[in-house]
């Protein structure tokens, strides 16, 4: 069983990221540098001696944000401008990012206006991943961001510090991947919410402290699979990029008789999938990491003709012995909406069942969703031992 005290600490940070940042700032007197998801390498900020924090969607309903972005934007972007308008992001001394989603760019533009005293640093990362110049441009982008960070901090970010931060972040990722492996083989009985708390807190906490807690959790893992009552269906959770799925949604899925054995959520495996190569120039390493991530866990926000997200998902599910996939799509997430038909068709061809759930920031009719998840779980149960002869997709409409 995982170390519950260490896990409790991670849960606490995960549930109040800005509270953690304020306390950290008060305790250390250091600077806090926020970043937007999903591709800014926080190692750079850490090496500069500041606390890197990935801005999170808030649980609060949108209020002042309605006057900044229209309601037909994803929950993350609306929540971010809402947090900025309410002063919740005031703890951040700077914000850095380089992503390209059009809604994210709109939010960043608005946040810069809303927070005139906060330095917002941007340099657009190339999102076309297999051009001959992709590596060079990615490196240049990170170098530009580094230079602006140095300008903001009025001190250089030394290569030696960057090497050390890369090593620390790699260790952190490796420990979380150990937990993922233990979940697949049954040694770690971590719920979806637990895993989210572990990853989300990693996006917020001082990395040294977070890694120390992870070491405790990993050390407490049993050497053999933990027996489990009944035989819950094994599902893979897919999707949800910038924002974390609501814990109550994850709990509901598990209440219906499913156990989550794998995911490619940003607040999950996507975040920790890939290490930065060590032993080479650190900027080369970060650029390589940026490219390797999309090969390892393809992301629909990038375009890369020689990798397929749908093929990755089917392969991951085989490795996890997952019986079905639940797609969590944040409403209005354009990259996900573009790619979903590819996934849908591939899963239909492979006769692997999946259920699409569209999530919203404000309200989700959980009981309505529960009925659909229960039906999906029942379908998966009935398929056990049955020959694959019929189309197995359970299509869902907007929640």
């Amino acid at each position, binding site marked *: 069983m995982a170390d519950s005290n260490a896990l409790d600490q991670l849960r606490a940070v995960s549930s109040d990221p800005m509270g953690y940042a304020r306390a950290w700032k008060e305790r250390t007197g250091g600077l806090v540098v926020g970043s937007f998801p999903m591709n800014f390498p926080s190692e750079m900020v850490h090496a500069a001696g500041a606390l890197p924090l990935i801005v999170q969607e808030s649980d609060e309903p949108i209020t002042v944000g309605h006057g900044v972005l229209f309601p037909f934007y994803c929950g993350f972007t609306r929540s971010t401008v809402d947090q900025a308008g309410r002063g919740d992001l005031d703890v951040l001394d700077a914000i850095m990012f380089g992503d390209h989603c059009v809604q994210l760019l709109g939010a960043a*533009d*608005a946040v810069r206006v809303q927070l005139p005293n906060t330095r917002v640093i941007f340099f657009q990362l190339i999102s076309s991943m297999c051009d001959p110049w992709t590596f060079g441009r990615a490196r240049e982008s990170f170098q530009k961001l580094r230079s602006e960070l140095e300008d903001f901090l009025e001190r250089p970010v030394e290569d030696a510090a960057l090497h050390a931060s890369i090593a620390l972040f790699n260790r952190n990722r490796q420990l979380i991947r150990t937990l993922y492996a233990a979940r697949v083989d049954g040694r770690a009985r971590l719920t979806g919410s637990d895993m989210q708390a572990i990853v989300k807190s990693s996006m917020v906490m001082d990395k040294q402290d977070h890694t120390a807690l992870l070491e405790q959790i990993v050390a407490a893992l049993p050497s053999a699979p933990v027996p489990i009552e009944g035989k819950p269906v094994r599902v893979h959770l897919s999707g949800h990029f910038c924002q974390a799925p609501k814990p109550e949604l994850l709990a509901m899925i598990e209440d219906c008789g499913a156990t989550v054995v794998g995911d490619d959520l940003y607040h999950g495996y996507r975040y920790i999938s890939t290490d930065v190569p060590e032993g080479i120039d650190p900027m080369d390493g970060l650029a390589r990491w940026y490219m390797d991530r999309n090969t390892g866990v393809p992301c629909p926000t990038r375009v890369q003709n020689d990798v397929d997200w749908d093929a990755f998902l089917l392969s991951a599910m085989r490795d996890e012995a997952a019986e079905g996939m639940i797609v969590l799509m944040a409403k*209005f997430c354009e*990259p996900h909406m*573009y790619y979903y038909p590819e996934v849908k068709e591939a899963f239909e061809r492979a006769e692997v069942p999946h259920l699409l759930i569209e999530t919203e920031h404000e309200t989700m009719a959980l009981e309505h969703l529960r009925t659909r998840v229960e039906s999906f779980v029942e379908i998966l149960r009935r398929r056990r031992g049955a020959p694959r002869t019929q189309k197995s997709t359970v299509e869902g409409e907007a929640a």
Partner: protein
Amino acid sequence: MNAPSAPKAANKLKSTRMAGKLVNDYWEMVWRAKEEGKLVCWYEGSSINPFLEAADIVWVHGEAYSAMLAARHQEGPAQAAAEERGYMRELCSYARTHLGCAVNNQRHRNESDSAFSGVPDDEDISAKLPPPDMIISAYAYCSTGQQWDEMTSRLFGKKIPIFNVSIPWIWASGKDAGYLRGQEWQETSKYVAKQLEEMVKFIEERTGKPYPWDRLRELMRNVKRASELRLEAMDMCTARPAPATLFDWSVSIAPINQLPCTTDIVDYFTNVRDEVAERVRTGEGAVPKEKYRLFFDGIMNWNKLGWLAEKFARYDAAVVAGRYTHMAFWQEPDLIDPNDPVMGMGQNYLICPNNHSSPILIDLIMGLCEKYEVDGIVFHATRTCRAFTNPMHMIAETAQKRLGIQTTMFEGDVADESFYKDELLNTRVEAMLEAIDARRMVMV
């Protein structure tokens, strides 16, 4: 404010009627492309068509095809096909319609697809679009563009060669940053120009021929001249009453954006310029009793182009300028050197109306509002085009604070009329015009 009781037609420019013929001729050429053994390139966003036209490649601008279908109210079959494949309604309706054309195209060529007959409906022009031999993605600002092209490639089984030109957003944070100036502008211009040179190599690989640079130079001379004439005519609309409105300029987008870059487009804009000049001379307005002058912020609602022109005219409101029409489409002809056109072409792609962050963008819009002496701004909250809606609230707030003018918003869309709410527009426009009247009375 006058209630729009009796219909009275907007006094549209006569010279723009020629656009209809030019557009029809162009699409007929596209539909004949395969019969004539031409290579076909699909692209979205930036006007890379001169690069293709010079190489004798038939070009299909995705937005233009979707807009054409919507304007003819023939978007339904394509949008239905897209929806059947799983593309959701909240996706860009340009992309959704165009992807629907690709879905239809694939289905009509796949007899084993039992859900469809192998023969397209005669009236379904979405199925007439010839499939691509290559795809070039060169989209400023909006991430949708690149993803749309990638999904098109995947729809065709990744068998179509694709080339990506990355056009970065101008963030403008440096101390020297500004419109067409500063280190960021210079570096970004070079980055885009370099990729365009690589794109030419990609075109050479497709055609198997050396790139005809002389032909490109010739075409860009026409583009530059057409652009100058267009801007000259637009500038004359500072006159009262305005001789032309946004709706005339919307009709004139195709000639500057994607029609063949021959002397036809120079002739077209010469005629437009001459008619506008004549109207200024005689005091003839595009709205017979111009009482209000408005700025339109948002992309055009192509299903409703004529409808909106009539609606605003009946309110005696001349929509004299807009972000879509007045800040895009070879907007800076001075940057184009026909003898060495690549850099200037890239720079014009970079100044797509949304590709500057709000500090620059808002200044440009406020400048236009002052130049055309508008009384208010109408925002078309384009439901599936977040590239346009992103800064709207900030623009509205600045207009009210800096210029003290009225603003209003209505919801619609580029190619999906189900998002358009007529009563909402009526109520909000009337309220704004009443507020303008009230303000005028106070000032008197």
